[in-house]
């Protein structure tokens, strides 16, 4: 599948924003967020900026973005529609909790932030199911895909929150520990996922796609058109697939394992150095996730390529 830059950016930016919102709500409910009202509002604003920037980027993928509001209507059958609905709903408790902080109603703020945390999780899950529900793409219709999106969102969100807390001089050990745990989980999951898609059986063959396996081994002879078309450009992406193995290693080690390790180091080091380590960890994590999402597209294969290439 052709990597869509706008969607790669969307799932990374909004994923980090929803992750941040999740930890803010959860740790806030546990009384584990230090800092004053200004700090909480800053974290909340950053989460909403990331979410909104991602959602706006995703609109540029559309052929008719001015009709995007229509996408909220088919939540009964469509995961994309459910994602849209969940994304809109999440804004309500998130902005509500911010207003309660401003108004001094801290009890309500904590409750609404917790609701926003649950909504964030639901939104990221809906995003993942858009991919996981597409049967013709075996690398997406994979049971580890939803878990991967959720875990990596929580990983980047925890790294962000730990960095922000360390930067204002608060003890970042709770979110740093979460970044360590979810970074490790994410690395293990991606390793297992890649091993699984490398050994997965093909969904179909040219023989079953054409029914010509009745005669014998089937191979393409003449293409239906001499130039490319939308189908070949969109589903037949092969550029840089040969670099996939090295890109996987960079994602795994530099994007997931190293940030988790840096978060672990920050647990034993205090002060400005810890803040620096966490900042580097967050930047590495976000860059690694951009690479991971790009690979999600570049490595995905679609059954329609059987008709053109036979494989």
């Amino acid at each position, binding site marked *: 599948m052709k990597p869509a830059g706008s969607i790669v950016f969307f799932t990374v930016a909004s994923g980090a924003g929803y992750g941040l919102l999740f930890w803010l709500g959860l740790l806030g409910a546990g009384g584990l967020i230090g800092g004053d009202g200004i700090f909480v509002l800053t974290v909340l604003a950053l989460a909403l900026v990331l979410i909104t920037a991602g959602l706006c980027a995703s609109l540029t993928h559309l052929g008719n973005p001015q009709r995007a509001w229509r996408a909220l209507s088919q939540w009964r059958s469509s995961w994309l529609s459910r994602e849209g609905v969940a994304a809109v709903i999440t804004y309500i408790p998130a902005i509500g909790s911010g207003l309660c902080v401003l108004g001094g109603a801290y009890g309500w703020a904590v409750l609404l932030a917790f609701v926003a945390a649950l909504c964030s999780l639901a939104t990221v899950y809906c995003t993942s199911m858009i991919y996981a529900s597409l049967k013709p793409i075996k690398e997406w219709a994979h049971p580890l895909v939803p878990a991967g999106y959720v875990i990596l969102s929580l990983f980047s969100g925890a790294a962000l929150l730990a960095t922000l807390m360390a930067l204002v001089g608060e003890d970042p050990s709770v979110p740093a520990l979460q970044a360590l745990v979810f970074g490790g989980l994410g690395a293990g999951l991606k390793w297992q996922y890649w091993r699984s898609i490398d050994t997965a059986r093909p969904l*179909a063959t040219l023989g079953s796609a054409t*029914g010509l396996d009745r005669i014998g081994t089937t191979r393409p002879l003449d293409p239906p*058109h001499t130039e490319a078309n939308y189908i070949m450009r969109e589903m037949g992406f092969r550029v840089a697939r040969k670099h996939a193995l090295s890109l996987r290693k960079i994602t795994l080690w530099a994007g997931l394992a190293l940030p988790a390790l840096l978060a672990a180091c920050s647990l034993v080091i205090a002060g400005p150095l810890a803040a620096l380590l966490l900042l580097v960890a967050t930047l590495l994590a976000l860059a690694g996730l951009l690479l991971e999402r790009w690979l999600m597209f570049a490595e995905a294969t679609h059954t329609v390529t059987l008709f053109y290439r036979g494989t």
Partner: protein
Amino acid sequence: MTCLPELVPGQKKLGLVIDLDTCVGCQSCATNCKEWNTSGMSAPLPDFNAYSAGAEGVWFNRVHSYEAGEGAAGKTVHFPRSCLHCENAACVTVCPTGASYKRAEDGIVLVDADKCIGCQLCAWACAYGAREFDEDEGVMKKCTLCVDRIYNENIPEAQRQPACVNSCPTGARHFGDLGDPESDVSKLVAARGGFELMPEMDYKPVNRYLPPRKHVVPEQGKPVEDAPTPMDIKSSLLRFMDKVLTR
């Protein structure tokens, strides 16, 4: 509404039956499809760089050619590929806006271009590559089974079939109700062992393909020399003697 219509007993399922035995790969179905639909309900079907290198555009029908089998039993098969109007159409259920829908009355899968936001998720969900994105208008386009022909009372009754069926010079394309076991197309499918494409996807396509017939391969023995005929005898006398002696 992008939920699929509930199937009732005797459900009408309009679709195509394509005979891979008689298709000669002439591309007339694809050409006539383009011609009709570029001025039909999905009009226009855009072309980019139409008169230079890199010419490409939206077509609802693409005719591939394959080789199958080996040696004397091997065949060259021409294979038209278009929307199969699946019963279990994932392209419809993934649509977030309700632009993609499957008609309850005849099972035709259509796109309402006024509601389409151009997210292209339906093209990703189709296992068969039947949907092509109109990058000019920013909406998805697909085979309409010529819904603007088959019910069109302004054209002669004999022509109220999809354009691809009308134009096929070998009669390799058939149109009808595959939900009715007594229809001509259903009988044809039963008689010829028609099959569906990629059954493992469980999309339950309505269109059927008829397999190439098994041709009897003649024995590869020594050629037998023909016996001379009476006209091979040039002399009329000898010809007369041959006639007498043959009696």
